């Protein structure tokens, strides 16, 4: 039924609104129209039947809405989300034409951007979490007539370097990392990322490769060594972390970068001598320090507690050359400036830049002398724009008909380098840039292919993509309630958090192993039976015992303890009797010193016997884990990339085993403790987060933001399972959204919140059922019996593969896809599929696409 009044229709036609309906729709073009000409028609046709002053479903009366302004921006944002995601109008109602829907959504976004411009801005549509708001079926299916795509490009922009990139650059200045060892490819080598330390903190360590002795334990070591936390900030949250528009550098960060730059420069010049209190601390024979200047007393936690060897291992650079001699020359100074500039910005300075920093350093030297002036002056280079931001401005070249310019030379070379690496371009890439061989699509393909094929060229950005995609590296940051953790059967306290940081490194390595094969990568990640494990992972990959088993194991344990201590228990009985008798005798004969002496001796013997018995009991019981049926994880040795020694003997260890998970209990990374705990909370599993992850990262669906009126709390009922407590989300108001996540997250109830497999929850059979609802692929929809069943289905889906490609696109382009990117995405998926599920093919396709190579410069 045509709901538009005939007279009004005439008016609308006169204003050109209907005429627009036959115009081609070009994604990305500003939505031309007003509230009157676009919104009223759309709301009237598709929304007001349910959301007017009479029905006001969900307490929403859109008659009161009015044009977009700052007071109703939140409601308009919801309207946009519901329409873009095709949640509204509901399926039982007539859906708007695709182009009508797209135009309306564009108009809402445009209006929100306009009215919020000076009120903090509107950026929700740019957030990677909203990437799926672009219709998957349009991207990969048939594009309706009337939609005209324009050649794609990414905007000209600058990217602030990430904390990880920044600290890796700084690390290159002071630490020499080992070269890649093909025999132990998992070990950290030059070009790999700087891993977080034992506590999960990202830090730059000074001189730890030369420490041969320290005093005290783990904490004393951690305090005594020099380390600097990462200065650049980033919000730790789920999902893609690095779009160019996320971050800037604030004044506090700039000040700290400057301050730490001087520490770095001093270390570059003098090595550990810049860290010690006494030169004698640098020796290959620590005794010489002990016998000379070492201070008396407790040195734990102090720099003077450390002895460094004399083996110079740090990079010796022009900064070292400059400071090893008295005085300075312009030549030496410029060499230091140019070296630092390239080390920090990844490109050589032009003459003007070199002159600028030379002049700053000379001015500082003039004021405060060479020693302080050099360090002060050179530290300014650490704050150069290009040391903190990577420009992709495409200022060279003429725009094509669509206002696009292709990146070239250093900008293109550094974009390619940044796509894969954290350290500066290798010699071959540098040479290509300098010689003008980084200007074409073929140039990019040549360099990317070369780097992907060479294992010794470390490519930590690829691993970073998988961390952002899976979020398996957050487990160590999930604060666990001690009692709740204790019930899971794993170690409590610091040991658990360290196990989780170890687990993240293990999962990283498993991903790398699958990438090395480069076949069916996503499917393998989702379904592999392999695990990379530490010796302590037998608990985490184990099975939580049932109530019956706990009772039986406890009994067995007690029996074994009794058996092992049977003989000594008899001895103890006799000795106890003897001591009791002696005590009574001694009480009656207080002056009998010999008797007292005998009593003391016997009491000591008894005490020792009690201790020995306790030890025997502990030893006999140690083989029984009453809570966990531990996994047998035997296999071949593996190594993972862990941090420099940060915690003395308690530092993270690289040794791992590549093993097979217990049969029928695990299937791929989503069933590993690292992923499960990353998607849990203090007390329990987080079925909602897990469901959202499946919905967004595998099915390509979107979930509108939680309405502010929702009190998103589950009842505190420790006697009930999570599934039972989640009944509140099944209320009608909540369920329209929660049906998209809960049934996808609840199948993971087959694991407890430390990631252990279980068959019972609260001593009853655990319910692991779930359902894939409204996935967009009817073959997928339907009930699932547990997480393994669900993952098996998902892993076979082409849609899931396409969604994976969409996430890869976002990561490498640094932005959300638009409809104009459909050809790039289709080609990338084709490359992946034709390559037999090859990640390398996918990356090459993306990095040689227009979206990667071109920048729109029509600003």
């Amino acid at each position, binding site marked *: 039924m045509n*709901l538009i009044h005939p007279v*009004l229709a005439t008016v609308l036609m006169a204003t050109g609104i209907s005429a627009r309906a036959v115009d081609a729709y070009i994604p990305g073009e500003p939505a031309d129209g007003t*509230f*009157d000409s676009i919104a*009223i028609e759309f709301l*009237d046709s598709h929304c*007001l039947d349910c959301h007017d002053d009479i029905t006001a479903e969900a307490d929403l009366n859109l*008659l009161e*809405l*009015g*044009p977009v302004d700052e007071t109703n921006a939140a409601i308009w944002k919801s309207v946009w989300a519901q329409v873009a995601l095709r949640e509204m109008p509901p399926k039982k109602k007539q859906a708007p034409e695709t182009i009508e829907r797209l135009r309306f959504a564009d108009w809402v976004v445009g209006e929100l951007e306009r009215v919020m411009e000076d009120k903090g801005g509107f950026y929700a549509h740019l957030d990677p979490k909203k990437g799926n708001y672009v219709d998957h079926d349009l991207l990969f299916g048939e594009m309706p007539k009337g939609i005209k795509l324009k050649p794609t490009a990414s*905007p*000209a*922009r*600058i990217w*602030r370097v990430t904390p990880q990139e920044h600290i890796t650059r700084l690390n290159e200045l002071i630490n020499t990392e080992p070269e890649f060892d093909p025999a132990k490819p998992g070990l950290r080598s030059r070009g790999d990322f700087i891993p977080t*330390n*034992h*506590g999960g*903190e*990202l*830090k730059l360590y000074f001189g730890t490769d030369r420490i041969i002795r320290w005093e005290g334990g783990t904490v*004393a070591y951690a*305090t005594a060594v020099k380390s600097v*936390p990462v200065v650049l*900030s980033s*919000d730790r949250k789920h999902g893609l972390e690095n779009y160019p*528009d996320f*971050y*800037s550098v*604030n*004044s506090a960060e*700039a*000040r*700290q970068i400057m*301050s730490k730059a001087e520490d770095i420069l001093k270390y570059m010049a003098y090595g550990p001598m810049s860290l010690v*209190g006494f030169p004698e601390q640098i020796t290959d024979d620590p005794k010489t320090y002990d016998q000379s200047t070492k201070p008396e*007393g*407790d*040195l734990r*936690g*102090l*720099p*003077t507690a450390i002895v460094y060897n004399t083996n110079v291992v740090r990079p010796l650079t022009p900064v070292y050359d400059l400071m090893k001699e008295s005085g300075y020359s312009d030549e030496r100074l410029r060499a230091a400036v140019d070296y630092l500039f390239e080390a920090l910005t990844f490109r050589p300075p032009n003459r003007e830049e070199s002159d600028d920093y030379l002049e*700053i350093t000379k*001015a*500082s030297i003039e*004021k*405060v002398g060479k020693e302080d002036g050099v360090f*002060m002056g050179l530290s*300014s280079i650490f*704050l150069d724009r290009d040391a903190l*931001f990577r420009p992709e*401005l495409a200022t060279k070249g003429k725009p094509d008909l669509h206002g696009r310019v292709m990146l070239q030379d250093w900008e293109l070379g550094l974009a390619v380098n940044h796509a894969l690496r954290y350290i500066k371009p290798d010699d071959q890439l540098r040479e290509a840039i300098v010689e003008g061989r980084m200007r074409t699509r073929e140039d990019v393909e040549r360099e990317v292919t070369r780097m992907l094929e060479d294992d010794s060229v470390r490519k930590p950005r690829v691993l970073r993509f998988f961390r952002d995609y899976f979020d398996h590296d957050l487990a160590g*940051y999930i*604060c666990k*309630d001690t009692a709740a953790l204790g019930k899971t059967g794993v170690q409590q306290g610091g040991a658990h958090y360290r196990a989780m940081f170890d687990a993240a490194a293990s999962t990283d390595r498993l991903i790398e192993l699958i990438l090395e094969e480069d076949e069916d990568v996503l499917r393998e990640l989702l379904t592999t039976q392999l695990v990379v494990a530490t010796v302590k992972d037998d608990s985490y990959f184990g099975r939580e015992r049932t109530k019956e088993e706990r009772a039986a194991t406890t009994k067995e344990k007690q029996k074994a303890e009794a058996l092992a201590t049977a003989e000594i228990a008899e001895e103890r009985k006799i000795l106890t009797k003897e001591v009791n008798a002696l005590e009574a005798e001694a009480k009656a004969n207080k002056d009998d010193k010999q008797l007292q002496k005998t009593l003391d001796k016997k009491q000591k013997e008894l005490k020792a016997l009690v201790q020995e018995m306790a030890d025997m009991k502990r030893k006999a019981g140690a083989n029984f884990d009453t809570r966990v049926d531990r996994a047998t994880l035997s296999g071949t040795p593996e190594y993972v990339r862990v941090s420099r020694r940060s915690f003395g003997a308690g530092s993270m260890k690289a040794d791992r085993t590549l093993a097979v998970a217990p049969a029928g209990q695990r299937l791929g990374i989503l069933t590993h403790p690292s992923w499960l705990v990353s998607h849990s909370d203090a*007390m329990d599993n987080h079925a909602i987060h897990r469901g959202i992850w499946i919905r967004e990262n595998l099915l390509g669906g979107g979930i509108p933001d939680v309405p502010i009126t929702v009190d998103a*709390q589950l009842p505190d009922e420790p006697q009930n399972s999570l599934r039972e407590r989640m009944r509140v989300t099944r209320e009608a108001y909540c369920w329209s959204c929660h049906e998209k996540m809960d049934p996808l997250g609840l199948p993971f109830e087959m694991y407890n919140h430390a990631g252990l497999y279980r068959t019972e929850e609260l001593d009853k059979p655990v319910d692991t059922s779930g359902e894939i609802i409204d996935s967009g692929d009817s073959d997928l929809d339907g009930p699932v019996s547990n997480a393994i069943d669900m993952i098996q289905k998902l892993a076979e889906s082409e849609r899931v593969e396409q969604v994976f490609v969409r996430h890869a696109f976002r990561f490498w382009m640094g932005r959300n896809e638009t409809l104009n990117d459909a050809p790039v995405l289709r080609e990338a998926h084709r490359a992946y599929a034709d390559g037999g599920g090859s990640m390398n093919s996918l990356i090459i396709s993306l990095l040689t696409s227009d979206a990667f190579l071109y920048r729109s410069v029509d*600003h």
Partner: protein
Amino acid sequence: MIDRRNLLKGVTAGLGATFGSSIVPDIAHAASVTPGLTGTGGLKRVIFFMQNQGFDPKTCLPTAGVGNDGSLANATLPEPIEALDPFKDRLHIINGLHGRHTSPSHSAFFGALGGYRGSDGVPPSASTIDYELSKVLPETLLPHLCIGMDSMENMKAKPTVANLSASGAGQPIFMHSNPNHLYQMLYGGISTGDIRKQHEARSGMFNRIEELAAAKGGSLPAVDAQRYSQYVDGFGDINGLRERLGSVSDHLRDFAPEVDSRYTTPVFETDWHDSLLDLGISALKSGITNTLTIGSGRGEIFGAWKGLGVEQQGHNLGHMKQPDNPIWVKIRQYNSRMLVKLMEELESVPEGSGTMMDNTLIVYTSNNADSQHTSGSNWPVMLLGNPGGAFTTGKLTQLDGKRPINALYTSILRASGVKVDRFNMSDQMAAKFDSGTGPLKEILA
């Protein structure tokens, strides 16, 4: 249908008329360095004094004379804090808060002021209370100053460390431990000799960096230009702070401490501790800052106080029992003298109808709860001062160990006019760790 459309249009006109102009409040940024000109009373400045290795309640609970209502009027303070006796009327001893959720054994690090799990090597998971207060207190040139006291070797080798304060998740705030550097930052503009030269060299360099940064922002797309301007403006802040400090140099001259041999040739680490305290006090008195965080032991489990005659240093200090231990009596007495000095100095500056101290709150506690190896089931705290009459004072409050330190921080935020019921604690965590909501009613007037 037409009626409905017309109604929509009618609403449009009405809203346009009502909200046609901006309703975003105009926030004034009055960066005054003259005490007393900002705010309208109540809490104007706050000091957090965090002694490491734990704060054993026996070193602060009165030995006798506490009234039935907890009054300290006739109480006898124990030897370690007896220097505070003249200030009993504005002292509030709180025993029985907890920090079990902060994992405080071997220090809760950022978790002590953040009220969340912290540990060695663990980055801050949210901002800390001192930073949050610095944002809401009357604005100053330097909203938040952190100083850290440690062994001489550590202060020289690592003159800035970050263990206690944070402006957000993964965003640590560094403590200053070298008084020469801090003096240069605060008073370089009025200094002479080498400090002056360093100051001038650094000023020239920062000005030049700002110029270079600004020049490289010229050709950026509009969106990036805005983001990049935050970076350039950052240098503006740094240079602006120096210039603003320079512009009030006559005023600062009245407050800047004298640089003496304690700065340049310290005999003991306590010479630098004292100098750092002097700089902190001067920054408060001069109005440079309104939030001071003092980390004695810098949030870790080491530290040294040889200047007090304490020959032992570092970790062993934490293994000792504190009550009746001459070593800990000396350290706590030293802390108490510092607290007295802070109060006396702030009392010496008139502000409004009273003194600066009348508008100041000092929070004294430990980053280690009650002892070095602790579960955090008790976290003793002393509050000094009663800004704006917001707090109850002159009393001992014994709590039941069911409210977390977060509740104390909520209370201080409330006293600062921030309407919050919890600080850094989700409802889920609160269900486990907090028996109540909102501020500690026992400490607010």
